[in-house]
């Protein structure tokens, strides 16, 4: 009927925004790599064809807003939401209002899926939410008797870090875990941690909880070792990646616990496949961001296929199908098996505690 085949869509358009430049670009780049790897694999299957458009948002909520509009103009049908929580919080209400389905790989704040007053129907998470991690960590430390006096060092200008720390502290109070020291740092003081470490040491902390990303964590490990302070370090999923940092002396991380859904050294087929392919494509070992992004694409693919979504459907129709799928389906990926989603969008997967031994993750159980 009309001009030619060219106008007919031949892909499902998936939007994504994340930091590609600026200080948080590491995370955006990792997500991009993971997503692109999965995209190539999925499209190679020859079934439903997907297309991803990633916009730079510099991890800034106002820029994410603009990026969202750019994606709308492009004709986004489904979304991978944003990479960071801060950026995602800003656009979550818009996804909800416009009724576009969005599954974030790594935006872990609860504010991405619900606010104080309402649940965003169309937004879902692939990663653990911050409260999960905070509560999970506190419980694990208590149950396994890792220590009696806990210190925390967190990043006060980071939504992710303060979110986890906050829940950890609250949970610790509930279960009777003694917190002896809380130290903060921020962007402009993210190199020198000796003062906080000394504070923790002086308070007699035997467990140091680090709800932060691996870059500052590596400095903390080093500086603690330099000053001869050796508590049990306990990290969260942001800690993943520390072993693969170029030039990092892995002996520093010996004995570090972390709660993570993904371990690059796992031996299951999926992980092995993902890690080898990733290394082939990008020459480095994937971290948890890349893994979550990889899973997001597969999860979307699974739901799109199961829901019989076609190229010409509009975003709103697709959203209804996806919501129905996600609240009922089970997904197996590199960051967890038998993964399910609650109606509010939070993911449910088993956090794995691992401990680093001889430079590799070992199941802590």
């Amino acid at each position, binding site marked *: 009927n009309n001009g030619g085949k060219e106008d007919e869509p031949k892909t499902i358009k998936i939007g994504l925004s994340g930091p590609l*430049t600026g200080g948080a670009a590491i995370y955006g780049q990792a997500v991009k790599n993971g997503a692109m790897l999965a995209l190539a694999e999925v499209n190679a299957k020859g079934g439903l064809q997907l297309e991803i458009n990633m916009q730079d948002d510099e991890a800034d909520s106002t820029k994410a807003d*603009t990026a969202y509009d750019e994606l709308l103009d492009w004709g986004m049908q489904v979304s991978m939401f944003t990479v960071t929580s801060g950026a995602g919080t800003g656009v979550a209400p818009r996804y909800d209002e416009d009724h576009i389905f969005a599954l974030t790989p790594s935006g872990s704040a609860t504010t991405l899926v619900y606010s104080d*007053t309402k649940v965003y129907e169309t937004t879902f998470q692939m990663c653990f939410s911050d409260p999960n991690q905070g509560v999970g960590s506190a419980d694990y430390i208590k149950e396994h008797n890792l220590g009696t006096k806990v210190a925390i060092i967190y990043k006060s200008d980071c939504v992710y870090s303060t979110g986890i720390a906050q829940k950890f502290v609250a949970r610790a109070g509930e279960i009777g875990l003694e917190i002896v020291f809380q130290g903060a740092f921020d962007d402009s003081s993210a190199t020198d941690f000796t003062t906080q470490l000394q504070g923790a040491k002086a308070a007699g902390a035997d467990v140091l909880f680090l709800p932060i990303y691996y870059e500052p964590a590596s400095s903390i490990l080093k500086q603690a070792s330099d000053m001869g302070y050796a508590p049990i370090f306990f990290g969260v999923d942001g800690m993943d990646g520390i072993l693969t940092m170029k030039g990092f002396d892995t002996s520093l991380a010996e004995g570090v616990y972390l709660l993570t859904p993904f371990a690059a050294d796992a031996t299951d087929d999926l992980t092995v496949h993902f890690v080898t392919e990733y290394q082939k494509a990008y020459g480095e070992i994937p971290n948890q961001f890349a893994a979550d992004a990889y899973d997001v694409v597969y999860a979307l693919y699974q739901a799109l296929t199961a829901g019989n979504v076609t190229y010409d459907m509009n975003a709103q129709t697709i959203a209804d199908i996806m919501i129905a799928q996600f609240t009922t389906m089970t997904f197996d990926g590199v960051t967890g098996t038998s993964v399910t989603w609650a109606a509010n969008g939070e993911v449910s997967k088993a956090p794995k505690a691992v401990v680093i031994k001889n430079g590799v993750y070992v199941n802590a159980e």
Partner: protein
Amino acid sequence: MEKMFKKIFDKKHISRTVSYLIVIVGYIIIQLMMNTVGIKNLFKSLLVPTCCYIVAALSLNLVVGVSGELSLGHSGFMSVGAFAGILVSGLLEPYLAMGWLRLLIAMLVGGVIAGIVGLLISIPVLKLQGDYLAIVTLAFCQIIKSLLNNIYLGVDNNGLHFSFVQNKVVLSNGGRMLLSGPMGATATTRLATFTAGFLLILFALLIIYNLTYSRFGRTIMAARDNRIAAESVGIHIRNTKMLAFVISAILAGMSGALFGLNYSTLQPAKFDFNLSILILVYVVLGGLGNMTGTIFATIILYVLPELLRGLQDYRMLIYSMILILIMLVTNNQSLKEKVEALILKIKTRFLKKGSVAND
């Protein structure tokens, strides 16, 4: 006839009229387009922030260009205005349904509070000179950011709850967090409109121009050109500079409030040193004291990175190269001379024609 041409060519008049005209015509065109052919979502979403940045840049130009003091902390005032505005709007929401009125009140309150902060800051700031002044404004911006990153403020039936520590704010059922540390303000009702932005620009231009071309503007510029001489003719330098500083803070606060109410989430980290610098770039590129130029520079430089989106990772690299090139080209002496000569030519031709017609 000649007189008329001379008047039109009089720099003051020409630039003032041009700025008002550009703003009004621009607004009309965009409105027409929105109502007829429609514009892309991307551009629609850039309209309000562009207006905010224009006002921020105009107000900074009052300090940097007209008053001659380098301020590296302008985003601090935007920040104060933004969060004050969001709070006011949030608190009024249950009682006042009219969005535009809430927006207006929020902007006014944002402006006033930023103005008060500006007044307080100006006391230490204006005791200093040059780069020392610059560093104190920068310090101020850092302080604001650092404080806001650690403020937890919530409201429930028992009123406001405030703390510097995250877990201390416990709200009863139905309570809402207004500010939550680095997360800032979330779930804000978006009230900002392009029309509000347009009116704010006009308001800013009105204040800045009318102030500049009055006895206050003269004293501000005199204090800039020669401090000692200004004092010797009875100009109180500090009061003078303070006026510029506070007015600039008020306008920045208003633009911040509008900016804040354009998004459902706003984090304090947004208003960092880099934003101050960005606004400063608009000012310098637009020309010190040149308001029309500032408007253009802001539009171009704010929209540019968005146009470069297709370049992905290379976006900011290209942007920085363009920035450097623009600075080099606009400061190129020989180029400038050529342009000047051209303008002179046109001017003389016009004047001659004018006088001939007159004879």
